[in-house]
């Protein structure tokens, strides 16, 4: 009986966690490549701003600040590449809609955009780990 209570409690906890996942997961909420790219880039920007707030606080140790800055410096070029891939995707999409390019090219551009989203995600995680470490 006690084991059942534990299971029930764990189930409630899992449901709570899933609710939390749903309410704060921009990338999961997105459906198209463009939305996913925008969601990934926006998530990066949110943590970037958080990082900037932290490094301006005198109470944060110097080493922690430098670690945050380095993590942001690693992620920033990837985020910039994601932006470039998005601009390229938009251009190919316009050409496709005008009938000037093939669907294959559009799919390739879309795949490339998704690829940059995948590359950015672990770097954002690393940035967050450093933010957490500083706090």
């Amino acid at each position, binding site marked *: 009986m006690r084991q059942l209570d534990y299971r029930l409690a764990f189930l*409630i906890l899992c449901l709570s*966690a899933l609710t939390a*996942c749903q309410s704060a997961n*921009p990338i999961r909420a997105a459906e198209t490549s463009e939305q996913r790219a925008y969601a990934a880039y926006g998530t990066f920007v*949110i943590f*970037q701003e958080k990082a900037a707030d932290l490094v*301006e606080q005198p109470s944060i140790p110097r080493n922690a600040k*430098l670690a945050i*800055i380095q993590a942001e410096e690693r992620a920033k070029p990837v985020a910039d590449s994601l932006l470039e891939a998005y601009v390229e995707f938009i251009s190919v999409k316009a050409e496709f809609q005008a009938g000037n390019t093939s669907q294959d090219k559009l799919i390739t551009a879309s795949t490339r955009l998704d690829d940059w989203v995948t590359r950015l995600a672990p770097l954002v995680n690393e940035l*967050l780990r450093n933010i957490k470490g500083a706090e």
Partner: protein
Amino acid sequence: MDFISLAILAVNGLRTVMGNPALGGGSSVRLDQASELLGILGVLLEQGDDAYEDLKDFTETIQAMVKGGREPSAAEWDILRQRSDDAHARLQRAKEELLEEEEPEVTPDPVPVDRGGNPLEPDPTPAVETLPDDDNPIVEPPQ
């Protein structure tokens, strides 16, 4: 126990299970990614700070985009790009300040001069360092 505490507990519990094959988790890349995601959410919930609220608001923006069947506009991208550039500039300014703190200005040792202001020649005899008597160890000669 309030909702946030409950959610933190749940997220951390799920993360432990998902990251540990012995507990039935970690069997695929997808699960690893989910574990990482739960880690992030756990951290944010634990912090209870603005970043979590911002992330929640941003998720709602994306959900509205999906619901309305629209893509992000050029103006929306520009706003994000500007915010990113601003944050990056603040981080770089902080970095410069930190590095300046690390390297204090080095002033050269003053060169000794004679009464006419000409630099003096260095003394060719090497200086012999002597320790105060109290600090001089007494070394017994080997027998």
